[in-house]
């Protein structure tokens, strides 16, 4: 820590101007978030460390959780039901991880915006920061969860292909998609807490409509359009293909996913822009 940067921090004297009918601009919200970088860091840091603070194994649970879950699912689905998928455990885990990221981030964003209501009532913070920090924490957890997956690949003799290098791009697309939807949901949930319960049910339905546990080819042809109408099908696919199939996702799939991510971001931002100025009495 240099004395210069301390002095620079002390020398900042911004002028704040608030007036009736003020609109939230994307650039200003973004600038506020960058200025609150330390808060964002602290929020993510807290999310990751506090979660397991009281447990004996601590952050190790981030690794154990997906592994144990997969053990259960593998027992159930490769011995009881038997799907004809090569390396079923890899297929399962590589689809389950992005799904878990999506469902945890959306649900936790709504909860985090709720918990931090008292905070937003007392300090001026960019209100989208809680959704953003939840998404970033989710990405960190997701990245850690890939370690047991890679270990499993070594154990099962699944080769590491160069397509694995595409994985960060897949995750980035999934993260933007998840952030946009989470922002919309957490904004609306400030007004209607019921949205959280409704979305939980929807998630369960969505999991059955997404080929995570089962392969797509067991779905009868007449039901296939239903799967193809589900955005999460494409999102899990783009993250799974580079690992399980060991090939790059098709340009068509990438195009669909990028469009979905941008649409989700746009919906999230429009909802936030319109509804967040009225948060105060609802917090």
């Amino acid at each position: 820590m240099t004395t210069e940067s301390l002095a620079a921090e002390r020398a900042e004297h911004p002028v704040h101007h608030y007036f009736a009918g003020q609109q939230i601009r994307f650039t200003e919200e973004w600038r506020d978030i960058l200025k609150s970088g330390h808060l964002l860091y602290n929020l993510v840091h807290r999310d990751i460390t506090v979660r397991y603070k009281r447990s004996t194994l601590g952050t190790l649970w981030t690794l154990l959780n997906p592994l144990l879950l997969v053990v259960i699912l593998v027992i159930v689905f490769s011995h009881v039901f038997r799907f004809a998928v090569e390396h079923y455990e890899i297929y399962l885990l590589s689809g389950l991880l992005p799904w878990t990221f999506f469902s945890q981030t959306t649900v936790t964003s709504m909860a985090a915006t709720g918990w931090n209501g008292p905070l937003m009532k007392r300090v001026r913070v960019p209100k989208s920061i809680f959704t953003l920090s939840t998404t970033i924490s989710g990405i960190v957890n997701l990245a850690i969860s890939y370690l047991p997956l890679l270990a499993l690949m070594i154990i099962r003799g699944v080769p590491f292909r160069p397509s694995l290098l595409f994985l960060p791009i897949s995750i980035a697309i999934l993260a933007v998609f998840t952030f946009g939807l989470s922002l919309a949901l957490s904004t609306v949930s400030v007004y209607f807490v019921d949205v959280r319960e409704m979305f939980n049910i929807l998630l369960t339905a969505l999991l059955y409509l997404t080929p995570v546990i089962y392969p797509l080819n067991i779905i009868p042809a007449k039901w296939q359009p239903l799967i193809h109408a589900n955005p999460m099908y494409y999102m899990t696919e783009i993250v799974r293909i580079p690992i399980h199939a060991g090939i790059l996702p098709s340009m068509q799939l990438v195009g669909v996913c990028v469009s979905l991510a941008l649409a989700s971001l746009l919906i999230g931002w429009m909802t936030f822009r319109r509804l967040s100025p009225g948060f105060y009495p609802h917090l």
Partner: protein
Amino acid sequence: MSSVTCKNISVSYPPRKAPTLKEWALRRRHASPAKPFQALTDVSLSVAEGEAFGIIGGNGAGKSTLLRVIAGIVPPTGGEVIARGTVAPIIELGTGFDSELSGRENILFNGSLLGRSRAFMRHCEDEIIDFAGLPDFIDAPLRTYSTGMVARLAFAIATTVEADIVLLDEVLAVGDAAFRVKCEERIRRFHQTGATILLVSHELKNVQELCERAAWIDHGRVVHYGNAKEVVELYERGLHAIPASAAANV
């Protein structure tokens, strides 16, 4: 140059929040002509740089709402606010404290809520711990602290971040007598170092002693505005003649 300028601020809240979808739907059907709640009406005031300014009034008069508008937490529905400099809103002590984190971690976290970097907070960490008088407990989780200890830590953090404008909402009411004396000293020191202070308090004595000017707010309107001693005296006289002032406000 004035540090805080409020021009014709009004704040109205929508009628009453509908906590569930059911209530919302019901209200849609029986469209009840519920009126919005007017928290502030046409409030104008300006606070000079380095001035200590008191805000007094009964419960629910709109004092805290006014501080929140100045802090940029509540958007005004009418008028405008200009605040020059970094603002530290100390609306409620212990905001954003996490009971699982240690006192030391909470210092960093709380500082970032007030816009200060981790490095900055590390720099003044010792001063905070010393002022709060918690050297033995600072690495224990906050859930093991007593209420008084939490309040002391919160006040120490809030008053060490060196803001240009400090908004204090009823924060002198915490801690034991000895700590209150320390708090008052802190506020005086703020004042000496040139910070602008807006103080909401029910302790009229504090307002008279610490502030140069004050505003009396009632039902969201400024009733009197000027010299702190005079405004407090008028307010006290008003308290003893409730029927008359109530009639005046209808």
